[in-house]
């Protein structure tokens, strides 16, 4: 009897709590509106100023491409700030998509190559190494552009126990995310290191184990983990893979040969939106940082996002992009990248790997998108 009454009390409490929670949600929503309101207005005015220069790419199209499935390179953070910004500002819908589904990747997600191959995503951002490995094994994929003209891969260590060169890693434990295995293996080969000489530890995305001394080194993006730890007060030392026999582009766009042929307009629309949004990221690095933190409040602090946004722009608005437009991979760069891949034992030809015809067509149709804006500051 008493038990029954007790239970009923419990139910009542839950109801009250649920009711209060609902109320809080409403209040929270209102607060969000209050905060986001001016931000949105500001964003609109900004986009107006950028689009007053008549961009044919910016004019709304009447075609209907349905939902765009886009596989991000990593867990949601400002690395994909351009995509979050494009989603929030409707750059994808401007190109004819009704909506966009941004699929996160990460240390344990299905590899982007597989997601694209199986048709679950139209376009993905991934590493050149894993795509090249897939192409060598016969998968019908093409690299159609690159975000980073210079790859941000680095090995990060604690400043108190620094790893300054690849040779310093011998006998040490290095945390490597499984997504970066292809790069890691190739990098070791490029530096004449045996896999047995360095202990690879499979790690997740959070670099805390390095700070705690569980591992001696951490495979990182120079634009990401060192900034994260730096803001937590952990001093780090890094060396770039690019400086040790591993010059390569990074965060490449991929699509299947089939969609390049049969869904070409769709892929083109997606890439056009990508160019539009990343141009804005370069001139206004705060915008992708704000969009990321707004959409994914748990992805990190705004300070880290802003820093990373500025840092990654240096890799995007760089080298061949300045002369040939964002994401463009020139024939010379293609040859160099194929040579780098061969160091790691992945032998593919430039024509197997790259297809720049889509970017050629986009820049031919929208010459106004080609000049890379000056890198903004925060």
């Amino acid at each position: 009897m008493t038990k029954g009454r007790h239970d009923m009390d419990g139910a009542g409490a839950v109801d009250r709590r649920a009711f209060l929670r609902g109320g809080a949600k409403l209040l929270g929503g209102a607060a969000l509106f209050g905060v986001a309101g001016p931000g949105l207005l500001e964003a609109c005015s900004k986009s107006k100023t950028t689009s007053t220069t008549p961009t044919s790419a910016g004019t709304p199209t009447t075609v209907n491409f349905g939902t765009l499935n886009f596989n991000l390179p990593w867990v949601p953070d400002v690395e994909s700030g351009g995509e979050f910004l494009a989603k929030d500002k409707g750059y994808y819908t401007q190109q004819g998509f009704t909506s966009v589904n941004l699929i996160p990747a990460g240390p344990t997600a299905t590899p982007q190559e597989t997601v694209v191959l199986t048709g679950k995503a139209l376009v993905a951002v991934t590493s050149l190494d894993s795509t090249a490995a897939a192409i060598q094994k016969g998968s019908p994929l093409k690299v159609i552009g690159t975000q980073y003209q210079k790859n941000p891969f680095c090995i990060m260590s604690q400043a108190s126990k620094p790893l300054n060169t690849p040779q310093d890693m011998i006998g040490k434990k290095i945390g490597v995310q499984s997504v970066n295995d292809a790069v890691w293996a190739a990098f070791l080969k490029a530096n004449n290191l045996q896999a047995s000489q360095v202990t690879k530890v499979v790690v997740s995305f959070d670099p805390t184990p390095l700070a705690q001394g569980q591992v001696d080194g951490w495979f990182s993006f120079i634009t990401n983990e060192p900034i994260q730890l730096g803001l937590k007060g952990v001093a780090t030392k890094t060396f770039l893979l690019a400086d040790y026999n591993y010059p390569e582009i990074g965060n490449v766009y991929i699509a299947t040969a089939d969609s390049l042929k049969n869904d070409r307009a769709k892929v083109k629309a997606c890439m056009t939106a990508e160019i539009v949004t990343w141009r804005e990221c370069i001139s206004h690095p705060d915008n992708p940082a704000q969009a990321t933190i707004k959409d994914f409040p748990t992805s990190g602090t705004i300070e880290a996002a802003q820093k990373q946004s500025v840092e990654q722009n240096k890799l995007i608005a760089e080298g061949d992009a300045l002369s040939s437009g964002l994401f463009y991979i020139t024939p010379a760069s293609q040859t160099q990248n194929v040579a780098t891949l061969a160091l790691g034992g992945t032998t593919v030809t430039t024509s197997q790997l790259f297809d720049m015809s889509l970017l050629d067509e986009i820049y031919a149709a929208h010459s106004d998108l080609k000049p890379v804006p000056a890198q903004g500051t925060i």
Partner: protein
Amino acid sequence: MTATEAPKTPGTGAGSATGTGAGSATGAGAATGPGAGTATGPAPKVTKVKAQNNRSLAVSRLAGNLGSVLVSVLVMLVLWIGLLKLYHVQPFVAKSPQDVWRYLFTQRLDKVHALRSAAENRHVLFLHLKTTLRDASLGYVAGIVLALGVSCVFVLQRMVEAAFMPVALVLRSVPLIAMAPLLTLIFGRDLLAVAVIGGIVCFFPALINIMYGLRATPRSALDLMTSYGASRLTTLRKVLVPSALPSIFASLRINVPAAMIGALLAEWLATGKGSGAEMLTVQNTSDYGELWAAVVVVTAVAMIAYSVVSAVEAAVLARYAPDATGRKR
């Protein structure tokens, strides 16, 4: 997966495996009928016949297990081919049984497409498998030993059970992937971590099963022990544990695949060595041939180990708890 398996296993036995075993056991039983009836000879002869029956029961159970393994291999092959066909999964990702066969036995070295020879493929797979087998054994032993100890304590001291059962539940219900960072921080990334992660996976189903067995001891046997003034420990040793043997073996059996999963998880989350880590690596280098072959090999090993444990179980139960098989019938 194992959690949902656990509660139903003590009741149903080992599904099809014991089903066939029990079937042929009835045959053996019928054969003893006339023999025992006509002879009515001296007692030693009867025990000899009984022992023989027990042995034939064990043999027939083993045969039954092998039969069921064959059937399940067939079912798996049909499902494998059928599902891939039905859902039109990209052949680059989805490998067929023929592809796995080629990978393991007929593949020639092909540098252009980065394909190793079959011999080299097998070498790589078995290198990782050795590690995984060691890891699985570690987790298996850790989980079962702990479960045996804890379940005895729980059964003897209900208060302890009330206090510590929630801890066991937490171990089971918090995803290992969420606990992994903490576990690797405390236990490192070597064999200790393997034993802990594998142990956690095996512990809970074994605990529930063994406790069920210990509690299913016939009341009359307990009364007998009480009337002889036996201590609780003696009762545990002489009555509770022997009568829980069927449950103990059931958990030994269901924990074979669980231990494999535990080892793969530990390799994935902590050590970065063995089949578990390799499966993740090759997925990211799009080496789907090796991925599928590794899955097939690991599955085959788990099935073989399961059959071996079943055979041992049949032999031991035939000797120590012959009525256990009868009860299942």
